[in-house]
């Protein structure tokens, strides 16, 4: 039976409407998850009576991609500070962006906000700073002795990450000498806060870690 015998000739192109209306487009957008991925965490003495905390996210940003990089408003960054050695946070610092501004809350007691879920410590002391746009001088927000920053920076991390991957994957047995810094010439989104030691225990040792929490 020939198609023209069926008289369906014009009918068949019908299906092409369906092309436009269905099937292919449902291909889901790429699974996300990078904006909450912590690339690095630093804690060190800045001014002699202060400690600096740094949380970096969104690694391997090229200079071209950096102007468009932004903090995700649904990601809360939480610095945890344990002052009595039980690996349970006693103090927290929260950082959360909104409309181009990074809001820092604390350091404040972790009461009610320990563990894996919680709310923004919005009732505690706030230090705010305009998120520094790429290409601008760093905006620094202060509140008493606290200083804060948020924006793109050079990624301070250095490592031959690729060679490490090859070794773990069983494709190489030794590092190269010299190695290549995978992160050379790339940027990262940084959140930095410097606080007086007196606000986080004063003396002795603290244990600290950073979390990203999403809503």
């Amino acid at each position, binding site marked *: *039976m*020939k*198609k023209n015998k*069926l008289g*369906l*000739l*014009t*009918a*068949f*192109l*019908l*299906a*092409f*409407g*369906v*092309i*436009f*209306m*269905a*099937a292919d*487009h*449902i*291909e*889901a*957008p*790429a*699974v*996300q*998850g*990078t904006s909450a991925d912590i690339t690095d965490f630093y804690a060190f003495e800045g001014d002699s009576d202060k400690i600096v905390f740094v949380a970096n996210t969104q690694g*391997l940003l*090229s*200079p*071209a*991609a950096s*102007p*468009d*990089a*932004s903090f*995700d*408003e*649904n990601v809360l960054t939480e610095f945890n500070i344990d002052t009595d050695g039980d690996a349970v946070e006693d103090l927290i610092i929260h950082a959360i962006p909104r409309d181009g501004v990074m809001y820092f809350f604390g350091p404040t007691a972790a009461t009610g906000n320990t563990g894996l879920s919680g709310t923004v410590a919005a009732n505690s002391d706030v230090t705010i700073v305009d998120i520094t746009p790429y290409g601008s001088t760093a905006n620094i927000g202060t509140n008493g002795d606290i200083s804060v920053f948020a924006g793109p920076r050079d990624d301070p991390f250095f490592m031959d*990450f*690729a*060679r490490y*991957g*090859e070794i*773990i*994957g*069983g*494709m190489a047995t030794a590092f*190269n000498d010299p190695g*290549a810094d*995978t992160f*050379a*010439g790339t940027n990262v989104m940084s959140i930095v806060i410097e606080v007086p030691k007196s606000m986080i225990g004063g003396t002795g040792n603290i244990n600290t870690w950073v979390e990203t929490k999403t809503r």
Partner: protein
Amino acid sequence: MNNFCKTLIKTFIFCGFIFQICSCENNASIAKETPKSEKADSFSRDDYAAYLQPGERNDIAKQKEEYTFWEKKLEKTPGQYPYLLKMATASNSLFGLTGEVKYLVDANDHLEKANLMINNSSAGSLRSLARCYITQHRFKDAHAALKKAEELGEKLEETNKMLFDVNMELGNFDLAKSYLDKIEKKSSFDHLIRRSKWEDHVGKLDRAIVFMESALENAVRQKNQSFMMWSYTNLADYYGHAGRIEDSYNHYLKALSIDPHDAYAMKGIAWIQYSHNKDAERAKEILNNLVQRDATPDYLLLLAEIEDYEGNEVAKQKLLDQYLTLTSKPEYGVMYNKYRIQLLAEEKGDYKQAQQIAQQEIDMRPTPQSYDLLAWSQFLSGEKEGALNIIAEHVAGKSYEPELLYHAAEIYKANNLNKKVADIKPELIESVYELGPAIGKKIQAL
């Protein structure tokens, strides 16, 4: 990701004003409806004329700059596989922005190479590769990559989402559902859109729309422009399925207000002009405009249908030949199998090749859709009993897609199963907009 960032800034400016107004009115929703029905011309060219000349776009140049940056770094330090991944991301964006398939091939090559260098030991890199395979309709390859990622377990939830997508494509619907159920955050965008897809699959379009609307709300709340774009256009498609043409039209326009360059939304408007508004000239104007600025072959096919509708056989055949030549390029692989099968059988009388490709599709993914293509090409070649057997065994009751139902109806009719035809007909009549004016006539004649 970069894509998202890029549109983010653009759209923030665009939306800044809207956000402002909304905030003063204490109204959280930015998705305001403009009642189109009050206009004299419901689908006025003025609504989208600006998007026919959307102006210069710097996103393509930016992605090329991004690509070059990593390419240069890789030249200096060839072992750095993360740079291959970055290049693939840029290439993938360029494919999306230009429709040029060479970028997709490039992304594929870089992703395969990167995964090889680390012996498939990174779940994230495997997911990127799987995603690229999905775009190319290489669903079995995508599945294999995702199963490896599943074992590694880094961000298992992301892998599970993609395993839902791929199993849906492969026709493993029960398995797909089990992955859907594993997604923990039920209110997340990623879960809502997949739940929506599932509801559509089981024929519950109303519920599919509800979930997609929730996904849109979620995207708006997150201020995630790429998710908003995605939800607007997918909702527009669903509204079209549901016969809510004005809602559909308005949502394509909303997508275009976020990204004036979005070709998919423009194509949707062209379809409305043609299928609903019966204005072939306006539809052709849009499609010819898209052909100028986007290499995706699909527009040629819709143009061919419109030429057919207008009775321009020569113009139609020319467009179809153009389409067939373009989509036979090896770079497209199996991406356009479905349409090639139909064209070969319906227009070129090449039943043998059509059935060959249909069999290949079935081997790759034994879905009702693939079996339908085989049944349809058999039917057109005159094997009406064989076609009926395939429909009975692999299609009937397994899919609610209007196109498949229509094919089934024609096959039932040829086999004198008039009761079955009568059962399907009312549903088909409801789907006339989706199937287009040409088939509308055929449905009436069933």
